[in-house]
């Protein structure tokens, strides 16, 4: 080991992502006085809360060496289902919360069935599920977004509406901190502790690190991979419900763009503090980076259709740093 010799690359590798966030925030603060205000910062955090949920799910699938492309569709599905439970069926909290959760668990189990049991490569299996789940949510909503007082097929008006307690999840505040931000922090902390300090978390990493060695060490690898896909779908599902609560309608196809942002956040997370592997804290930082960029660009009045260019460049840079480092490591 080289030890104390300062290397610019190592610095970039470990703190690059964080440094970029700091620099970007500095630049935006200097160009726009409103940027670095409490309101705007909470705004950014609120805007990334849903992506963070989805991205943490993706992180779980990455940890076991898999991939879950179906998370975006799962978001769309639970958004619409949660909305319909209230607006169409006038259900109370129990059903409104349980129905989407059960559905997302089901999606996760089917993913696990395809990938773990039938052994379809993860990308392909979850690609198929992306279509299936998306199709189901479209069929179920008949292609219409769900909102209070919407016209029904028989000419009547939808009987229910979005309930206060539900909207509070997405729009409420506790001591002037938005509820979704609090929920996001909770999720980050809990999953971080789970992955870092518990046996199950360790086993998930071992399974992803070397599947065959893990199996031959007596780890029930199929069970852990199943767990990862179920959690991935569950967090995506929760994200979808949060989305419905935040915008107050059951927007169709709202999860489509979520997939890409979540994957980007999770991969940017590889490079945070030089982890070199999927980790929840890094994923959170990745989501913040994307949120800050979007927010700043909006303020600078950049055309929204250029945002994807910036997102893509950030992702490519983060990946370049991560994989360059991995290659150096393997050579050593």
């Amino acid at each position, binding site marked *: 080991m080289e030890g104390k010799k300062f290397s610019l690359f190592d610095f970039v590798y470990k703190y690059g992502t964080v440094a970029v966030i700091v620099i970007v925030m500095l630049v935006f603060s200097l160009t726009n006085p409103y940027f670095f205000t409490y309101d705007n910062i909470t705004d950014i955090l609120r805007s990334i809360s849903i992506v963070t949920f989805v991205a943490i799910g993706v992180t779980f699938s990455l940890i076991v060496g898999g991939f879950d492309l179906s998370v975006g569709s799962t978001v769309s599905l639970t958004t619409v289902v949660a909305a319909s439970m209230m607006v169409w069926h006038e259900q109370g909290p129990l059903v409104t919360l349980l129905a989407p959760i059960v559905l997302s668990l089901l999606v996760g189990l089917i993913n696990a069935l395809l990938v773990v049991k039938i052994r379809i490569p993860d990308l392909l299996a979850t690609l198929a599920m992306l279509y299936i789940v998306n199709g189901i949510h479209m069929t179920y909503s008949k292609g219409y977004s769900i909102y209070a007082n919407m016209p029904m097929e028989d000419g009547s008006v939808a009987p229910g509406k979005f309930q206060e307690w539900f909207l509070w999840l997405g729009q409420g505040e506790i001591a002037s901190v938005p509820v979704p931000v609090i929920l996001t922090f909770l999720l980050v902390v809990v999953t971080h502790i789970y992955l870092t300090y*518990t046996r199950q978390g360790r086993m998930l990493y071992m399974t992803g690190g070397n599947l065959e*060695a893990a199996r*031959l060490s*007596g780890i029930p690898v199929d069970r852990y991979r199943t767990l990862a896909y179920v959690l991935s779908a569950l967090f995506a599902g929760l994200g979808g419900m949060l989305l419905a609560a935040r915008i107050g309608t059951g927007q169709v196809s709202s999860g489509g763009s979520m997939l890409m942002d979540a994957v980007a956040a999770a991969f940017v997370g590889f490079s945070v503090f030089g982890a070199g592997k999927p980790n929840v804290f890094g994923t959170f930082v990745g989501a913040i980076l994307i949120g800050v960029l979007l927010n700043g660009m909006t303020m600078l009045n950049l055309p929204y259709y250029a945002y994807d260019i910036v997102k893509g460049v950030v992702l490519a840079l983060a990946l370049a740093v991560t994989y360059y480092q991995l290659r150096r490591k*393997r050579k050593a």
Partner: protein
Amino acid sequence: MSTLHMQGIEKQFSGVPALRTVDFEVKAGEVHALLGANGAGKSTLMKILTGAYQADGGSISIDGQAVQIQSPQDAKALGIQCVYQEVDTALVPYLSVAENILLDQLVQDKVSSFVSWQRLYAQSEELLRGFGFSIPVQMTVEECSLSEKQLILIARATVQKAKFVIFDEPTAPLSTKESERLFHIIAQLKKAGVGIIYISHRLPEIFEICDRITIMRDGQHVITTETQATNMDEVISHMLGKSFAEEFPKAVVEIGEPIFEVIGARGGKVRHADLTVREGEIVGVVGLVGAGKTELARLLFGADAAEAGEIKLKGTQLRIRTPKDAVDAGIVLVPEERRKEGIFVEESVKSNLSVATISKWSPFGFIRSGLEVGLAKELVQRLGVKTADISQLVGFLSGGNQQKVAIGKWLETDASIFMFDEPTKGVDIGAKSDIYRLIGNLAEQKKGVLYFSCEFQEVIGIADRVLIMFEGQIVKELSRDQATQELIMYYASGGE
């Protein structure tokens, strides 16, 4: 007549010498056997010749003209071809026989971007006919048998105007009849003036087809001789060198009651295996490469599916369907492919050592990190793992130290049967003696040990009893006093 000459070749892997000033030569029109026990350096030498590795020192020349081989392309350009043992790695399964034979030509064709199927089929058919074979050339390679695939590779080598062809254990997967056909082809190549380097563990066929023999041991050249001027006993003693027992003395342990019994195990390559292990006993399971040792170990461990058989541990009948079942019952395996199956290269020494016992000391699922650090430190010391720190990634350790980690994770489990599959493969001499010592310690603690290896001298040195496998069956049992390398070789190569 051209001659290929390798002179003073040296090669080190992370400081461990694999080749020490090795000389080797092969002439056009001769079949030259390259022999040596596992780890003698044969494949390293050949990988240098084919450009897969770079030598650290020495030179290669053809007809006295020095040549540089920096890459596989260089080797091919010089007319050096290799027919690898794992034929599938060099073939494209869903392309036709013809395309596979003429693959290099297709890839390199600078004249035309279009493929003339007619010409392709005609050319490859003619090539195969030259060897006296007819495989339908439009068939995909997927549908070919192993020996046909081998033939395709040989045909491909001749298309390239090969001057020197290396055969690496070509008969290992072949039946007797298929081997005969292969020898016929080799004779044809020889007649055409090709120089052939022939690597094999099967001595009878060496004496049948080879003109000269070169023997290597521990990365050094031992002797080159005319085949007629020597005999099998002499060759074996050159391959083995100093006796194992002199180098690694065996610990004396009192052997107890039978604890592990296997009756009629069958599955995959394993056709039939009965065996018993007693307390404190080290049972060696030997056989040539491909005899089914690894498969038997994996079967007993639940890593591969068993079709039939009974397994009893301390009198209790077990149902082992997954490795977890085996570990829970107290049967553990140190697998052959260390990097792929035994360790987690991107995890720390600490997490590698704790993986098998972690559930025992994680109350409510939380890892007690103090306990983990203590366990890892203690094991590192007991195993003699050379590492700067227990948070070091295992991928950075040397092969021997990685193997110690792979063994170490099982030491604190309550397992009563320890299986080792080629535990000293690719391990330097110092780590080897540490590993023998660890296995001896396990026997002293009344554990049962199954030691799978194709290194006969090791097994004779360490085992109380030797079981010999041939073609998926245990064909012979020898006691420690009876076992000699010659006798094992005799049964392992199908003698009755």
